[in-house]
């Protein structure tokens, strides 16, 4: 989902593409003429537009709407070597912003650079480029999705790919796509995309679509499921849930097979494991019948669980083994890496554990997990009684016990730092795939013996019983149903329910939560399932009855009045980012960061988000720069918040509402800004409040021109500044004309 931040670059081998060099950790691009950038990270269209403008090409808007993956920039004639890590030296501001962004895209995995040295027209370059590379068409053809996650803070939903025909076979019914979509909507999952296996591969390899022979390809449904429904992360789970939802199947009962205590397999946990990964839970799937599709689904589910609830294997890691190749009892240990030797999965030779981790540093898939144990003095490892290594969690399994299509008995182990989640993961694995066992839904237990001698039997398939008053279910929904109806609805949602036998008094429902439904925490979750089964869209609408009055925050109301006043003075309102780069907030304004003012971001994704602005000046200058061709005078303003460190607040920082205005013309416009200051001070004056006539005093701020700048003083406190912007500041922002600027704390005027 999120590309790794390591600079894994891959340029296409096509000779016409420009190559990149890594020299001493610096990325060097050699560029001339028109250069086309393509990246998985979208290119800021406005930047493309700016550069098209610069090269005098009128069709920029057309192109930017063609594909947001493309950016073409004319670098002029002659080669220029640009050090991406040091963009300031590279000349004009346009190039500068391009290269910053370029280095930003280069962080993605796939970057294609095309180079057309002898073309000056971007359009020609583009045409040539299309001819040169079929692969690009694929990038271009990628649809732009409106993402839903900008609407609410929910994390991205997991998506499960299932074969359509297998799914319908498992449902015992065929649907049209529309019918299936409607069913999904009702149940609360979403058919996100319809594709084919080969299309996915083609997309990965950037091959052209017309190589496809559409007919004999299996259709894949990509289904988006709720992030807390781990039981829906595989075809088996989705099909089972939908069968029960549409009433074609009853809730399954998952059972532990009856193994005599003498012959139960054991896993012994050594105390050292507490240093790195303290928990292990295990189970056995006996007599499982794999075919290719089931096997793939089994592998996919592990992967999905690893990516979701297991938090990329940090919390839980799953290992599955062919039980017939190993010999219990097993031990879960933690040993110094030098003492662990084994042949890992997909390898033929034996590795020592520390060498193996070194070896995997170049493995794209595995290297992201190495950090979990890398710096620990001991690595977790599972042995069988013959000292065969089963796995080196959470990195890799041993080759010896690898499962295959022929495997009949599967040993599942989950090692973890969070026991609750380990149990959920194990339960999900075994409840989903015991469907294919000789005794359907029956799982063989393992006894996990801790170093203190205490032991537990896993999996824990206990059913959670909840007694919920009928009114707690139907009242918050706003419907009236009797207990029988509620029981019917709950059974559709895999929650086995019955009316409490208790007679008289309150009517209660006894709900049995199966091990697959770890998402049920509270009676409220039961209520939600009833509401879903009833149908959200069937619930009668009502109106809240409480009487309340509308009201606004005084500061916001005041801000609106100020905004209106400044707009009436002929200034155009803009709205800019609150985050900016450290340089923009300090060095480019000729200011030093004393460390006592600005809120600093610890994990910015790019240089654009390094600090929270402490002044609006850089924001307005950037906006001006972007519209530098606009007729003069340019008069813009913003009313917005800055944030400064504040020891009096619980979080240690506070917002401050500011008004900033910028005037740009062939001459400075100092009087214009002064006029605006006078106007503001005149209109904000409360009738009883006397603002001294001398509220303006000369100042000496580095971002303003000497002797052409003032502070605004109210009640002895400096609340703002204005003046001619210092020419060096203008130069840094690439602004050719003089500007005057005002910034004032309007919270102080309230």
């Amino acid at each position, binding site marked *: 989902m999120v590309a790794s931040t390591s600079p894994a670059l891959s340029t296409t081998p096509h000779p016409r593409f420009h190559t990149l060099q890594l020299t001493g950790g610096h990325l060097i691009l050699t560029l001339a003429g028109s250069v086309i950038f393509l990246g998985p*990270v979208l290119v800021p269209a406005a*930047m493309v537009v700016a550069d098209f403008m610069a090269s005098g090409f009128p069709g920029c808007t057309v192109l930017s709407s063609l594909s947001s993956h493309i950016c073409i920039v004319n670098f002029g004639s002659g080669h220029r070597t640009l050090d991406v890590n040091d963009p300031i030296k590279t000349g004009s501001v346009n190039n500068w912003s391009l290269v910053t962004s370029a280095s930003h895209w280069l962080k993605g995995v796939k970057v294609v650079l095309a180079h057309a040295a002898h073309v000056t027209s971007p359009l020609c370059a583009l045409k040539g480029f299309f001819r040169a590379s079929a692969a690009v068409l694929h990038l271009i053809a990628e649809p732009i999705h409106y993402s839903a996650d900008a609407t609410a803070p929910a994390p991205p939903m997991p998506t499960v790919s299932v074969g359509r025909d297998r799914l319908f076979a498992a449902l015992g019914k065929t649907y049209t796509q529309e019918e299936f979509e409607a069913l999904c909507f009702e149940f609360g999952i979403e058919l996100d995309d319809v594709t084919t296996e080969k299309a996915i591969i083609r997309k990965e390899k950037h091959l052209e679509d017309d190589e496809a022979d559409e007919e004999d390809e299996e259709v894949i449904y990509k289904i988006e499921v709720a992030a807390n429904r781990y039981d829906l992360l595989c075809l088996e789970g989705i099909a089972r849930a939908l069968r029960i939802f549409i009433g074609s199947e009853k809730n399954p009962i998952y059972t532990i097979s009856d193994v005599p205590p003498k012959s139960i397999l054991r896993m012994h946990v050594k105390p050292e494991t507490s240093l790195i990964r303290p928990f292990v839970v295990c189970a056995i799937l006996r007599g499982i019948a794999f075919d290719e599709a089931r096997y793939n689904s089994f592998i996919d589910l592990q992967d999905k669980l690893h990516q979701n609830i297991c938090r990329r294997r940090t919390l839980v890691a799953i290992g599955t083994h062919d039980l017939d190749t190993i010999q219990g009892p097993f031990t879960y240990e933690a040993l110094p890496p030098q003492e662990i030797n084994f042949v890992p999965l997909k390898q033929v030779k034996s590795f020592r554990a520390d060498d193996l981790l070194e070896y995997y540093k170049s493995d794209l898939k595995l290297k992201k997990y190495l950090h979990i144990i890398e710096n620990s003095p001991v690595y977790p490892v599972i042995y069988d009684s013959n000292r065969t290594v089963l796995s080196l969690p959470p990195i890799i399994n041993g080759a010896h016990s690898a499962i295959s299509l022929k495997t009949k008995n599967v040993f599942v182990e989950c090692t973890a730092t969070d026991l609750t989640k380990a149990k959920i993961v194990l339960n999900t694995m075994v409840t989903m795939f015991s469907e294919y066992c000789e005794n359907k839904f029956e799982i063989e237990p393992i006894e996990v013996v801790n170093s203190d001698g205490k032991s537990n039997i896993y999996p824990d398939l206990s059913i959670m019983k909840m007694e919920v008053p009928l009114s707690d279910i139907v009242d918050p929904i*706003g419907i009236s149903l009797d207990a029988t109806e509620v029981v019917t609805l709950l059974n559709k949602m895999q929650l086995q329910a019955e009316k409490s036998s208790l007679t008289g008094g309150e009517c209660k429902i006894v709900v049995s939560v199966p091990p697959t439904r770890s998402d049920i925490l*509270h009676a409220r979750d039961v209520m*939600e399932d009833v509401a879903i089964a009833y149908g959200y*869209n069937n619930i009668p609408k009502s109106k809240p009855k409480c009487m309340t009055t509308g009201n606004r925050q005084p*500061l916001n109301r005041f801000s609106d009045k100020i905004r209106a006043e400044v707009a009436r003075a002929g200034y155009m309102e803009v709205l800019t980012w609150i*985050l900016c780069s450290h340089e923009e907030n300090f060095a480019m304004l000729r200011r030093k960061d004393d460390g006592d003012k600005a809120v600093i971001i610890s994990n910015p994704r790019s240089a654009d988000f390094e600090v929270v602005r402490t002044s609006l000046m850089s924001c307005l200058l950037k906006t001006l720069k972007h519209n530098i061709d606009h007729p003069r005078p340019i008069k813009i303003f913003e009313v917005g918040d800055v944030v400064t460190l504040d020891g009096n607040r619980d979080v240690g920082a506070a917002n401050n509402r500011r008004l900033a205005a910028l005037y740009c013309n062939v001459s400075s416009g100092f009087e214009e800004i002064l006029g605006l200051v006078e106007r503001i001070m005149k209109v904000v004056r409360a009738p009883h409040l006397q603002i001294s006539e001398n509220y303006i005093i000369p100042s000496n701020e580095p971002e303003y021109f000497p002797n052409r700048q003032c502070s605004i003083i109210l009640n002895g406190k400096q609340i703002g500044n204005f003046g001619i912007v210092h020419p060096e500041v203008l130069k840094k922002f690439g602004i050719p004309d003089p500007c005057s600027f005002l910034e004032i704390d309007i919270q102080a005027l309230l």
Partner: protein
Amino acid sequence: MAEDAILGFLQTNNEIADSHQFAASIGVDHTELENVIKRLHGFEIVEAKDFKKDNYLLSEEGKQYALEGSPEVNFFLAVPVEGISLANLKAKLDSKVFSIGSSWAKKNGWIEIAKGSVTRKVENVEDKVKDLLERIEEGKVVDGNDVADLSKRKLIVKQTWRGYTLRKGSKYVSKRKKAATDLTREHLQRGDWKDLEFKEYNLNAQGQPIQIGHLQPLLEAWDRACCVIVVREEIQNIFLQMGFEEMPTNNFVESSFWNFDALFQPQQHPARDSHDTFFLKAPSTTRYLPEDYVERVKCVHESGGYGSKGYGYDWKREEAEKNLLRTHTTAVSTRMLYMLAQQRPFMPKRYYSIDRVFRNEAVDRTHLAEFHQIEGLICDHGLTLGDLIGVLEDFFARLGMSKLRFKPAYNPYTEPSMEIFSYHEGLKKWVEVGNSGMFRPEMLLPMGLPEDVNVIAWGLSLERPTMILYGIDNIRDLFGPKVDFNLIKSNPLCRLGLQ
């Protein structure tokens, strides 16, 4: 003046043969006269025929000869009748006159140079070159051969002039009335506006761009054609009309506790990952939290309570103390609800806010690292899911979205959770417009709210409906430093609420 002169002259004369001569005679520059001629010709007041005329001008050297005489004559005159030594003569004369004059005088057969001395061969000479140059300067005609000779000596340069021959045109008048273009103060004072002819106005011409201030699209509201476009102020008005009170959202820096933990969002939740949330280096942690409430939140996460089984993990205070840029305004709602829970007796509330939130996301056409969240919530005894649906129908209908449907969804702090879809008449499909739900008891009860109090809430981004309804497909066109001023200026008037 030039116009009057032309028209006056033509009144008594048949034609003006040469505009150059005419220009010279009335003392105006020919270029100026030419403009007048073209204008009069355009109105058919005169008929102008152009012709080309070769004209010769003196070069700098030619001008000098015309003034001082040609070098050969000067050379000749410097030779006394008795003759002179070459060296003496050279000392006597300007070097140029000496070198040019000697060769020409010799060529003309005026002098003889022999054995270092110069003697006259003729008694008198005539300065023909000087005469010719003077005549050319006066504009008189000279013989073609002479012109060729002078050109060869680079004393004159040829210049082709465009001249005009003028006759009366079909609409000739002796005095033209001037059409006025605008009514001025002078016209009114003089009162001559009655006699003036006003120039026909070109109504196709564009008006003068007028100076107006402009508010940013996101902070106003706009509509185009059929669909209603909603933005902050309109949504604000809707909330106010529906009796909602604005929450103070001017605190971008928030602790993980108020942003996540208090919302029953577990500490291992992916939203709390560093690649989804901006954490802070300074100020890195929060300084104080309400201790007894923290304890209740810790318990509900670890082992549940209030009828919940909890998440069953070790809750860490360090995790809760980490500061961040708020990922949603629900952090503010949580603080507001907590404060409300401390008040006795309980008062029902309707709260709303529209303000900036932050996500550590890669910026692209549909994602911004900062955007605006719209949030509304109602807190009262016995609220139902039916109430939520009713309120949402009311709210969105005021935005022009009257056809809604709801999809089950998951959100860690709301149960039930519903995604809101609206049918888009333009796109002919259902589009997601927001999220909603009832806050979980695990979130509300630790705050101390009465047990039968429910909170129904919904949220959406300000950008998304604006983009959908406006047909903008690049979110970066909406706000940020890269907005186009022309886009701001071309926004149509808001018609929301006028129809």
